[in-house]
């Protein structure tokens, strides 16, 4: 995911990060929390789904709109258009002059930004509670009234190209990651960088942006999330007033390929800018929505056990005992509309050797495949995952992210609420079946990031 100004710190890296834990009240969409936190969802007649997470800690609200569109929905030859449009959404409407959106928010003491991933695009503002209507009015306005001219669009295209240079082209690790995605998913969908390819970005203009906007930006293709010092009644009233009048528009269902790229693959990148080698291996994996989805929860527990912390198997074996690496991790996120991946990474110790690290990582993965997980490991991993739910509730932004991510990748608010229970229900047998189905060497991309040969 990339964002307009700053990366939202680790939002998606923590894909397994827990959801707020709510007790569900039968027969009602209101799900009061045992503490002082609740969530309510409803829909407007035009199809806009609304999530409200009240919290009275400070007189502040977070207002977000997530669209069900991302880099994987781009027409062939127009890579980067979803992200480019995200930038252009700040270029004005009849009511809000170009560049004024963020300035108006700032003048109210607020902050705003936006982000784009393969599956979704989001816009958010954090403002004083009494400014909620103002940002809602502006956000609703640009949902349907965007005005674009060459004068604004052409310099912004250069901005997007500079952003790509900063994030990708100036970083050998990011370039290797881009190649690994293409190997994993093919030259389509998730295999195409969200930032786009420079030669295709240079061809994008007003016409392409407006066509994409008309195709995907509609109330029935969006989720409104409001968190903080507000009430469900207030949000409902304001949403009806500002988003309610926007007409529903036919949006074609999104398509994700269930075909992998060319697997298995070994990608070696040697670069004179690299001083610290890095090893990685990603296995094609199901998500909550595609592939063998029944494994999605068990894989999250498995990733914790193998490589989710400093007491995981990989860290203990490679870093603490063998001392051949300084870091060794596993990670898996199930939140995607299409297929996902189950990833491993390791950083060889200084003077260490990438082949030794690769052999040790492979050995630990094989050991897990053969022996499965111990009961005490499973208990600890689940506790660790679910404990994060309480910490997630401590921040204004985490809950909205979890709901936004889920609801733009084919899940519901109820799925988010049920997450801790589903994690707790995972069994040893399910973990064993899941890792055997997924950690298959013929469906992996292995990466070696190395210094230039001398």
């Amino acid at each position: 995911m990339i964002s307009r100004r700053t990366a939202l710190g680790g939002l998606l890296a923590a894909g397994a990060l827990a959801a707020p834990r709510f007790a569900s009240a039968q027969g009602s969409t209101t799900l009061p929390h045992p503490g002082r936190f609740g969530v309510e969802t409803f829909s407007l007649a035009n199809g806009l789904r609304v999530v409200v997470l009240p919290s009275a800690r400070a007189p502040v609200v977070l207002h977000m709109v997530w669209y069900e569109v991302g880099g994987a929905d781009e027409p062939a030859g127009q890579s980067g258009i979803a992200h480019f449009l995200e930038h252009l959404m700040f270029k004005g409407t009849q009511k809000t002059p170009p560049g004024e959106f963020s300035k108006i928010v700032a003048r109210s003491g607020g902050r705003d930004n936006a982000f784009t991933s393969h599956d979704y695009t989001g816009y958010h503002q954090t403002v004083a509670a009494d400014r909620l209507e103002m940002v809602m009015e502006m956000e609703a306005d640009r949902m349907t009234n965007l005005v674009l001219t060459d004068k604004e669009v052409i310099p912004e295209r250069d901005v997007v190209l500079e952003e790509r240079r900063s994030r990708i082209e100036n970083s050998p690790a990011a370039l290797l990651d881009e190649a690994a995605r293409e190997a994993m998913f093919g030259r389509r969908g998730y295999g195409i960088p969200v930032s786009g390819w420079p030669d295709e970005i240079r061809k994008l203009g007003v016409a392409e942006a407006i066509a994409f906007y008309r195709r995907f930006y509609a109330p029935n293709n969006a989720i409104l999330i409001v968190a903080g010092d507000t009430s469900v009644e207030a949000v409902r009233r304001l949403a009806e007033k500002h988003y309610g009048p926007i007409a529903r528009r036919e949006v074609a269902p999104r398509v994700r390929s269930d075909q992998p790229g060319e697997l298995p693959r070994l990608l070696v990148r040697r670069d004179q800018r690299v001083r610290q080698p890095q090893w990685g291996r990603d296995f094609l994996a199901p998500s909550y929505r595609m592939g063998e989805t029944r494994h999605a929860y068990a894989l999250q527990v498995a990733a914790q056990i193998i490589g989710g912390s400093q007491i995981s198997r990989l860290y203990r074996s490679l870093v603490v005992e063998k001392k051949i690496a300084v870091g060794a991790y596993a990670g898996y996120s199930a939140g995607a509309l299409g297929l996902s991946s189950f990833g491993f990474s390791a950083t060889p110790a200084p003077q260490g050797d990438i082949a030794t690290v690769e052999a040790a990582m492979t050995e630990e993965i094989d050991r897990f495949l053969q022996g499965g997980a111990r009961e005490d490991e499973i208990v600890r991993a689940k506790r660790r995952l679910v404990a994060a739910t309480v910490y997630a509730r401590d921040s204004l932004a985490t809950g909205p992210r979890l709901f936004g991510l889920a609801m733009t990748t084919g899940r519901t608010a109820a799925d988010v609420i049920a997450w801790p229970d589903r994690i707790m229900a995972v069994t040893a047998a399910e973990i064993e079946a899941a890792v055997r189905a997924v950690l298959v060497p013929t469906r992996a991309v292995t990466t070696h990031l190395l210094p230039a040969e001398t």
Partner: protein
Amino acid sequence: MSGFASRLAWLLAAIVALASPMAQAIDIKPLVSPGGIRYWLVEDTTVPIISITFSMAGGALLDPVGKEGTASLLSRVLDQGAGPHDASTFKTLQDDAAARLGFWAGAERFGGSLRMLRDQRAQSIELLRLALAEPRLDAEAIERQRRATISGLRRNEESPGSIASRTLYRATFGEHPYGRQVDGTATSVGAVTPEDLKALAARQLTRNRLIVAVVGDTNAQDIGPLLDQAFGALPPGDSVPEAPVWSPPPPRSGGRLLTVQRPMPQSIALMSLPGMKRDDPDWYAATVMNYVLGGGGFNSRLMNEVRDRRGLAYGASSRLSYYAQGGVFTASVATMNERVAESIAIIRAQFDLMARDGVTERELAEAKQYLVGSLALTLDSTAAIAGLLHQMQADNLAPDHLTRRRELIERVSADDVRRVARRLLRDDALTIVVVGQPVGLTATE
């Protein structure tokens, strides 16, 4: 409604928007525990969580010459086993209590934080006590963290942003301790012995200028005894370490330009000028100036000129940073090699313009609205509020500072901003570092 009329309505709505009195919503209590530990508390029962942030004077200032990174290494080893528990057991106990404990070393302070569930607070505090009072500093844990540190330093060695920042620090601070990297270098971290770490732990982990901030689901009766448990056994410590006085580099007509050649498509430029200390009477005038110039994100002059109007960069920004003995004002931009000279020229022209004319009344009003109103937006978690309480104490501010801050900001005049701009934005004091393959720039040294 016509486009013009509604447009005007928008702008007016924004201008009359008054910053809410949110900062005052936080009730900061300066307290003393039964055992004499001073701390600031904000009770917040939103979620059953308690966050503690604390620090002691010291940090990288205490690093011996040639062993830079000692304090940083100590911060990494401190949670790797304590009392009867080795590293794995200690981590497991943290996990079992769902406690999140970590330590850090800064340029002038050494500290840590603990986030814990309310009903696990006794177990969590005991882990903090053990780490502070009975750290093991096992040779094996030290070597493991040393390897990880050196690996991290190597990873950054060729990262363009890191090269630029190291070069700029060196050029700005020279041999002064502020010019060091807090994490040290591969060589200096390699030279740190277990004895060095033990000696530093004895000197650093004291009640000497201990600052403690507590936020969350607790109160004075509840947390006081727990703070005594965590910190009460620490020795008082001897003297408060202080950095030597820092003198900025001598002025040079036209400023200094350093280039570092690297094969990259985009150049990174960092620009620095001597700034000011946090207690400077002109601090808030400088804060307003920085906001208008480059601190205000999409609302800043640099962003408008470099990004919005010309598409030269993803971002251009500036900031004020400070230490006990001085401060710096820095600006940064990243632009393709062929056009980086243009970006730098635009930023310098903006510096000159600000020094000559200052800010408009409208810019001044908007900056004040943002600076007053935005603070509360950052206070969205117990950890964030604890961080603010900690910083206020480190800056020697009073508990009612959030109220006073508003007055101080609102009192800043356009004349104040122009005066401070003339003082800070001096062409002959400017140091520029460019990393990449910049076209059309000639280094001065």
